[in-house]
C-alpha cells in the first residue's frame, strides 16, 4: 500500500504540472491505493477439502486525470489513468491518455467545486487492519471455520456438513485535487465475514455474518458459530403450497431487495435512462408511510462510511424515501447538474427538479472496484454507502410475529432480479435458507431451502408493508457496494410458488 502522504503529494504535484498546460481549462486528479485481502472458505465433511481454500489478495495503485480541454472544435472532456506511478511522469501519461480520450459531451457542465460542508469523518481507519500480515489473514479464516465447527462438534452432528463463505479485508486510500480548489483525502478500512453452513443430507442452511471497521473486539468465529446454529435450527424443513402469504422479511432479504431493485431505482443515472421503478414518481407515495430510506455516508463507526466521495466532496445524508414518499436520489456531480438542465426532467421525475435542488446533492460519486476499493482508473459513477432502512414504528421481532399471526418468516433470499427491466417492478427470487412458518405469532416449522420462489412486484411489496422493526442489522450481500442497515419487515399478500418438486 502507498501511504496517504505519497498520494497527496502526487495529486498536488500533478495539479501544478497540469495548470501549466495551455489547452487545459480544468482538471481533477485522483490517486488511490487499494488492497482487497480475502480468505475464502470451503469446508465439507463428506468431500476432501482445504477448509481455508483461498487466502489471497489483489492490489493496485495509480493516478487518474479528468481534464477539460479547449479545442478548435469546442470544449471537450477526457479521462486517463496510469497504474503504478504517482510521479510527474505518471501524471503526464494519464493526461496524455485523457487528451487522446476527449469527447464533446453536451451534458457536461463542470468539475465539482469545493462544498461549503466539511467532511465529518477523520482518521477513522484502523491501522491494525491496514498493516495486517499474510499469516494473520490466514488465521482469521481458520477462526471463522473453528467457530462453525465448534457448534457442530458440540451438537454431535458430523454428516454432510458444508461451511462456505469468506473473510474479507478492504484497505483503501485516496487523494483528490482539482483546479476548482478541491484538495481532499480519505483512508478507510473494513473487515467483514459472510458464512453459510449446511447440513446437506438434511437440506438445512443457515447464515452468519458480521462487519466492522477495526480489529479490536472483532470476532470472526461468532459469524461461523451463528451460521452453524442457524443451520441446526432449520432441520426438519417443510414445503408450502403456492399462495399469497403474509410474510416477515429478515435483514438479508430486505438488503437483497434494496441492493437489486430499490436502490438502483433511486440512482439518478437510472432515472436519466428511464429505467427505474420510481420513474416520474418523485414527491409521490411509493411505499407504506412507515418506511423511510436514506443513505448516510458519514455515519461514525458504520461499515460503509467514507469521509469524502471519490470526487473529493464530503459524504453525508441523502434522504431517498420519507414516510413512503420519494424525496431524493443518489447522485454524483455530473448527474446532479444534468438533471437540472434536462428538458425531459419533469417526465423523468414527475416534478421540476429546480424546485427541489437539495434533493440532488452529489454525495455519492464513487469509483468503487468490484469487491471493494476506490479505483484511480475508473470514472466516477453513483454508488450507495450505508443505506439506512428506517421507520417510525417501534416494533420488535416478536411484535411483528404477533402482527402476522400466521405466515412465513423469510430469512434469506437469492438471485433477486427485476425480470423486465427496473421500470415495471416485476421481480423474482428464491428462498434459500433461514426461513420458517409463522404459527400463532411464533416461529414454527422451518422451511426447506430452495423450495419457494417469490414472484411479485416491488410496488406491491412496498405499499403492503405492515410493520418494521426498530432494530437494524448491518448487512452485506454478495457483490454489493453498500452496507444496508436492515430491519425486519412485515408485508401482506406476497406471492410465493412451490418449486423444485422433483428433486434431483
Amino acid at each position: 500500500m502507498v501511504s496517504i502522504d505519497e498520494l497527496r503529494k502526487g495529486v498536488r504535484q500533478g495539479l501544478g504540472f497540469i495548470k501549466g498546460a495551455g489547452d487545459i481549462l480544468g482538471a481533477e486528479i485522483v490517486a488511490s491505493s487499494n488492497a482487497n485481502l480475502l480468505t475464502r472458505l470451503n469446508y465439507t465433511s463428506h468431500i476432501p477439502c482445504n477448509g481455508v481454500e483461498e487466502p489471497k489478495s489483489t492490489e493496485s495503485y495509480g493516478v487518474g486525470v479528468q481534464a477539460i480541454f479547449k479545442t478548435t472544435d469546442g470544449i471537450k472532456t477526457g479521462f486517463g489513468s496510469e497504474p503504478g506511478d504517482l510521479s510527474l511522469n505518471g501524471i503526464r501519461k494519464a493526461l496524455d491518455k485523457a487528451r487522446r480520450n476527449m469527447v464533446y459531451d453536451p451534458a457536461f457542465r463542470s468539475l465539482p467545486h469545493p462544498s461549503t460542508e466539511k467532511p465529518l469523518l477523520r482518521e477513522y481507519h484502523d491501522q491494525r487492519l491496514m498493516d495486517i500480515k499474510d499469516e494473520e489473514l490466514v488465521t482469521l479464516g481458520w477462526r471463522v471455520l473453528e467457530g462453525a465447527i465448534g457448534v457442530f462438534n458440540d451438537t454431535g452432528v458430523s454428516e454432510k456438513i458444508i461451511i462456505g463463505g469468506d473473510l474479507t479485508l478492504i484497505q483503501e486510500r485516496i487523494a483528490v485535487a482539482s483546479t476548482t480548489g478541491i484538495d481532499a483525502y480519505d483512508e478507510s478500512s473494513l473487515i467483514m465475514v459472510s458464512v453459510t453452513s449446511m447440513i446437506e443430507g438434511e437440506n438445512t442452511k443457515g447464515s452468519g455474518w458480521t462487519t466492522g471497521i477495526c480489529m479490536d473486539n472483532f470476532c470472526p468465529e461468532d459469524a461461523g458459530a451463528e451460521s452453524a446454529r442457524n443451520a441446526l435450527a432449520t432441520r426438519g424443513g417443510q414445503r408450502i403450497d403456492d399462495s399469497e402469504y403474509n410474510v416477515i422479511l429478515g435483514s438479508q432479504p430486505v438488503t437483497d431487495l434494496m441492493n437489486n431493485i430499490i436502490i438502483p431505482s433511486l440512482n439518478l443515472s437510472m432515472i436519466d435512462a428511464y429505467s427505474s421503478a420510481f420513474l416520474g414518481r418523485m414527491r409521490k407515495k411509493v411505499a407504506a408511510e412507515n418506511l423511510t430510506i436514506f443513505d448516510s455516508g458519514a455515519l461514525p463507526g458504520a461499515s460503509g462510511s467514507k469521509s469524502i466521495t471519490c470526487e473529493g466532496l464530503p459524504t453525508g445524508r441523502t434522504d431517498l424515501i420519507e414516510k413512503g414518499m420519494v424525496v431524493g436520489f443518489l447522485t454524483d456531480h455530473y448527474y446532479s447538474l444534468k438533471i437540472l438542465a434536462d428538458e425531459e426532467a419533469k417526465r423523468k421525475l414527475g416534478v421540476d427538479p429546480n424546485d427541489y435542488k437539495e434533493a440532488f446533492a452529489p454525495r455519492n460519486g464513487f469509483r468503487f472496484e468490484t469487491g471493494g476499493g476506490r479505483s484511480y482508473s475508473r470514472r466516477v459513477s453513483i454508488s450507495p454507502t450505508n443505506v439506512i432502512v428506517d421507520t417510525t414504528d417501534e416494533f420488535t421481532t416478536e411484535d411483528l410475529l404477533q402482527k402476522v399471526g400466521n405466515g412465513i418468516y423469510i430469512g434469506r433470499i437469492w438471485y433477486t432480479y427485476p425480470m423486465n427491466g427496473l421500470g415495471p417492478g416485476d421481480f423474482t427470487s428464491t428462498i434459500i435458507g433461514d426461513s420458517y412458518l409463522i404459527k400463532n405469532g411464533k416461529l414454527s416449522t422451518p422451511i426447506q431451502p430452495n423450495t419457494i420462489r417469490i414472484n411479485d412486484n416491488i410496488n406491491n411489496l412496498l405499499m403492503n408493508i405492515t410493520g418494521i422493526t426498530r432494530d437494524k442489522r448491518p448487512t452485506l450481500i454478495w457483490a454489493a457496494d453498500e452496507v444496508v442497515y436492515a430491519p425486519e419487515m412485515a408485508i401482506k399478500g406476497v406471492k410465493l410458488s412451490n418449486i423444485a418438486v422433483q428433486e434431483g
Partner: protein
Amino acid sequence: MADRITTDLMDDIKTRISNLVTEYTRGLKGCYYTDLRLEIDEGQGAVAENGDSRECYEDTNLSFGVRVIAGKGIRAPGYFGQVIGMSDTGRIEKIVREGIDHAYRRAYSNAAGKLRAKETMGRLGESLCDTTLAPIEVHQDKVSAVFDLDPREVPLKDIIEITKEISKEISSYDRDVRFNQVMASTMMIRELFLSSEGTDIDQSYALTQGLLYVVAQNEEGSQELYDYIGDQRGWEVITKGINAYEKTLRDFSLDLTGDALDLIKAELLKSTDKEVVIVTDPHYNALIAHEIIGHPMELDRGLKYETAYAGRSWLLSGLDNHHIGKQIASDLVTAYSDPSLPGYGHYKYDDEGTPARRVTHIDKGIFKEFMNSRQTAAILGVEPNGSFKATDASFVPLIRMSNTVFAAGDTDTSDIISEVDDGYYLKGHRTPSISESRENFRISAVKVYRIRNGELGQLFRNGGMTSDSKDYLMNVDAVGNDFKMYPIPNCGKGQPMQTKRLGNGAPTMRSRARLTGE
C-alpha cells in the same frame, strides 16, 4: 524501452521472470508447486448516449497472479494478485518475487492452520486433506490471435464516430425512443502461463464487442432492452457483421430498437398455473444452456465451493451420491462445452495450462461429465478437462463455461412450430433468476408469441417461463437443426465476483413449462 505497455512487452518480461517460477521457488522450504499468470491487454472503446459521445478510452492493463502450494506435514494453497504499470516493468523481477513470497507465506501458514485443525476438530477434521493437482501433460506452446482488422490499429476516432452515428440514428428512429446507449470496444489480450512443472503457454486473442441499451416508452407502456454482439476477433465484428447475428452493430442496434417499439404496443403476458407447450428460439435457449446446463456442470459448484455465493449443483450431493451416468434429460438432448469452437468461450489452454477439450455434459439425455480444474479433478478422481479460467490474471481462476451449448437436432424449425396446436413461442432471452442449486429457473423473454394451429399469432411483452430444470429437460420433445452460438459477456461468479465472457448456443427446442407474466 517502450514508453507504454503493449502486448509485445510480454517477450521481454517472460525472459526476466520465468526462472522465478522454477528456480527461485525451488529454494522455498516446503514449496511443492508454483504457477504464475501474467496478462497484458491493449484496448479501446467508446460510448455514445442519445446521439452524443459520452466517453471513450484507449488504455492498457498489465496484471499478474501467483498460486503456491506449500506446507509442512500437509499441503495448502496461497495466492497473490496485482495490477502493475509501465514504471513497474523495470523492476518486475522484484515485484513478482514479492508476490510469490506473499503467496508462499499464505500457503505455508494455511497448511499449518489445516494441520492444527485436523488435529483438534475430531471427526470433522478428517476431510481436511493435502492439496493435490491431478497430473497433466506439460506443454510449451504459443497461440496467435485471429482477426482481420487488428484491434490495435483501429483509429479511436472511428470508434467514437460509429457509436455516435448509430446512437443518433436510434434517437431519430421514433419519438417513443426515450434513451439509448451504444458501446463498442476492441482489444488485444496476451496471456502467459508458467508453472514449476515446466508448462509455458503464451496465448493471444482479439476481442471485440458492441452493446445497445434502448428504452422505448409511450402512454401504452415501456420497454428496456439491451443486447450484445461480440466475438474473439477484430474490428470486423462491428463493421462487417462477422458475429453470431451476422449483422453490423448498426443493423443489430436498429433491429433491437424496432423490437422495443413493437413491444410497447403489445399486451402484457398473463402467467399460467399449469404447464403449456413452449417453443424457444436459439437465443432464448442460449441462456437456458448457460443457466441450467453450464452452471450446474461446474465441478466447483458440485464440490460446494460456491455454497455461499453463486450456488451449488443439484447434480452432485457427495462423491458417492451424484447423477453421473443417470438420465436427466429427454434422449433428444445432448449438451457440451467446447473451447475449440469459435466464439467468446474459445481458448486452447485454460489458466493452469491444461489443454482444452470438448466436455460432453449430456449425451442423449444421460449426464456424463462436469467441467473441472486440476484440484477438483483430483478430488473426483477424473482427468482435468481444461475449464479453469480467471477474468484477469490478478484474480484466482474459477471453473468456467467455455462455449456451452445444446447440440443441434435434426428437426426443421418450421415443423417444431407447425406441430403445435396451442402453445407459445419465446423469442430472445432477457433476464434469468435461477434457484440455488440450479434445480429451478425463471427466465424472461424479449418477445412471446401465441401459437395456434401451428402458426405464430399475437405478440405479448414482459413474459417468460418457469420450470423445475429436470422436468423441463425431460419434457423436451423436439430439437431443431438451426444451431447458433451467442456471446454472453457478463457471467458473475466467485468472491470477489469475476465477470466473465463466454459463449452459449443452442438450436430451437420445444418443451413444457409455466408461463410467467402479469
